[in-house]
């Protein structure tokens, strides 16, 4: 594993810088959005009350001081107290994070399990009816708005066919429609990319050589094609995974799913700085961890990347 430690150190340093930058941008942007205190108090609350609450929340201090406190707390894993819920911001986000992970992971597994075989099959049966049908479906999955798909699924699969509940969080049946809706775009993207990546590899010289050697078609696909086509597929899969875990506001709203996407939007409306900061930080962290894992997988798939 020559060069692995510097590779790891370099990636960790970049992850740290990315997290710091994201936190700082969110801190600044949220402060620019305005004062949360008017949203907390009744419209006829006296000025003295506004000043009292502002001081209580530490919003009366100069911005650089607030930023310093924010960074010091962040280093200790303390995201502050939610202005709206009046409890630690991390606890608020944690409650919603479980729902987001449940939905995001299900959508991802459904999407990835279906998309890679579809893309592969399409490539191998290029320009046949099967290929056209699969890519047509992928086009719909990629272009139909989530809002439209969600409501269509509710009307067809819930109201008409009576297979799944219309909305809410509960047993596995509650997961199916939101996961299908959320996963549709991901599934379509991965399927299309898998198809083009596999097609590119299938045209390569070493595949022709393998076939000329008399290697069976199954072995050509399994050993030579898939591994060589894997890098772009892993990249898009990882990126899509991050997106799915970052919260999906529209899907969560359509299906009344209590996830962090909806929490983030509501917290932005409420100007609940600590909750927005915590949500964005955790979403960014997940993204970074996933990218980091992808980098490691790259190194495994193609050792040239690791040493380069």
């Amino acid at each position, binding site marked *: 594993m020559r060069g692995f430690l510097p590779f790891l150190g370099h990636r960790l340093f970049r992850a740290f810088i990315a997290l710091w930058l994201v936190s700082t941008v969110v801190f600044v942007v949220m402060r620019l959005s305005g004062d949360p205190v008017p*949203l907390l108090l009744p419209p006829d609350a006296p000025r003295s009350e506004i000043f009292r609450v502002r001081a209580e929340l530490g919003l009366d201090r100069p911005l650089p001081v607030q930023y310093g406190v924010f960074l010091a707390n962040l280093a200790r894993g303390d995201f502050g107290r939610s202005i709206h819920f009046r409890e630690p911001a991390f606890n608020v986000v944690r*409650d919603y994070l479980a*729902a987001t992970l449940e939905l995001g992971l299900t959508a991802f597994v459904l999407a990835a399990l279906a998309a890679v075989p579809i893309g592969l099959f399409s490539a191998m049966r290029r320009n046949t009816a099967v290929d056209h049908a699969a890519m047509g479906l992928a086009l719909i999955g990629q272009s139909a708005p989530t809002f439209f798909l969600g409501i269509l699924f509710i009307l067809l699969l819930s109201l008409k066919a*009576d297979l799944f509940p*219309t909305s*809410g969080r509960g047993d596995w049946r509650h997961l199916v429609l939101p996961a299908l809706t959320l996963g549709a775009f991901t599934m379509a993207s991965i399927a299309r990319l898998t198809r083009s990546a596999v097609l590119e590899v299938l045209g390569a010289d070493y595949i022709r050589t393998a076939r000329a050697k008399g290697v069976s078609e199954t072995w050509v696909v399994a050993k030579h094609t898939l591994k060589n086509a894997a890098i772009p597929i892993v990249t898009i899969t990882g990126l899509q995974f991050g997106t799915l875990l970052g919260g999906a506001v529209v899907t969560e709203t359509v299906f009344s799913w209590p996830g962090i996407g909806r929490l983030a939007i509501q917290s932005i409306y*409420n100007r609940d700085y600590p909750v927005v900061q915590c949500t964005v930080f955790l979403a960014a962290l997940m993204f970074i961890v996933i990218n980091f894992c992808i980098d490691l997988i790259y190194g495994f798939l193609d050792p040239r990347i690791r040493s380069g």
Partner: protein
Amino acid sequence: MLIHTKKPDPLLPARLAFYGGQIVPKKYVETAGQAALNIKPVGTGPIRFVSWTKDDKAVFEANADYWGGRVDFDRLIMRPIPEMAPRIASLLKGEVDMITQLPPDHAERVNGNPSTKVVGALYAGLYVLAVNSKVPPLDNPLVKQALSLGIDREAIVKELWRGRGIVPNGPIAKGDNHYDASLPPLAYNPKEARERLKKAGYKGEEVLIETTSGYTANDKPMSEAIAAMWKDVGLNAKVEIVEYSVRAQKNRDKSFKGLWWSDPTSTLGDPDGMMWRLLAPGGPQDYWRNAKFDELGEAARFSIDEKFRAQAYKEMTKVFLEHLPWLVVIQPYEDYGLQKYVEWTPNPNQQFEVRRFNFKMRRA
């Protein structure tokens, strides 16, 4: 129990039956604190708090020991379903017994379904365009009269609310104390509106509606329709969309630039709890003052002579209709979707009455 008030209070019984009249256990609040009471409330009502999962559901159970008798269900679950289409689908599919905020254009679908029905109540309040009467040209009563005369409220009720509303006749909601049924509905008269603008010396100054989109029902479509009606009578009307938190900030700072939507609820069933609560000096919508209006409002608040109060509100209405600190637009119905086996009558002030006299589940 004896209650001492500093001044006579004609609305004390109404206040005790609304916010501020709730009874909570003293010991619990003192030891656990207000925050704990908010998260795990304890009261004296017909249902008992069980659990709350943020943004998911709140669960309550029947309080068997309630002095007024047990409610007609074991558990009450409240779930937020923010999107309209899934909310209606959940009712049609029979997943829920009742839904709130049923838009007028979906009533037919719910009524057409064999197992569901629509019930509604005339909202105990009004949808108004509140006016910043301190800025020109809105500081001129003649311009505001022209604005009011330029609104075709009948068309708004018919087209945007599918008939689920009435054209108000002043600042007091129908159903409230001292509502004057003899007053005619607010008039639409574009010709007269043009005349008054001319008389006011209006020179094309901008009249701005700052509206939210979806904060109150139909706020944006109504703003656009009204701005178009105003353009027809020669006004330079403009609509600007503001986000909800911006509206809250403007409300706090009293910094609205022209007109904005307000849907005041008549909390006490009396003009004191609506018109005077909002328009009084120092109130949340204090953008206009009139000595006579102020004197009458203050006197009516502390008088227990209902005849005097009736006369005071009559005169205040007259002043109001001349100066128009609000352009009253509609008093809508609020509709709910119900399973047919649920017998329930909505309360106009949005209180959710589930006691047995108002909520029954008809069993097969």
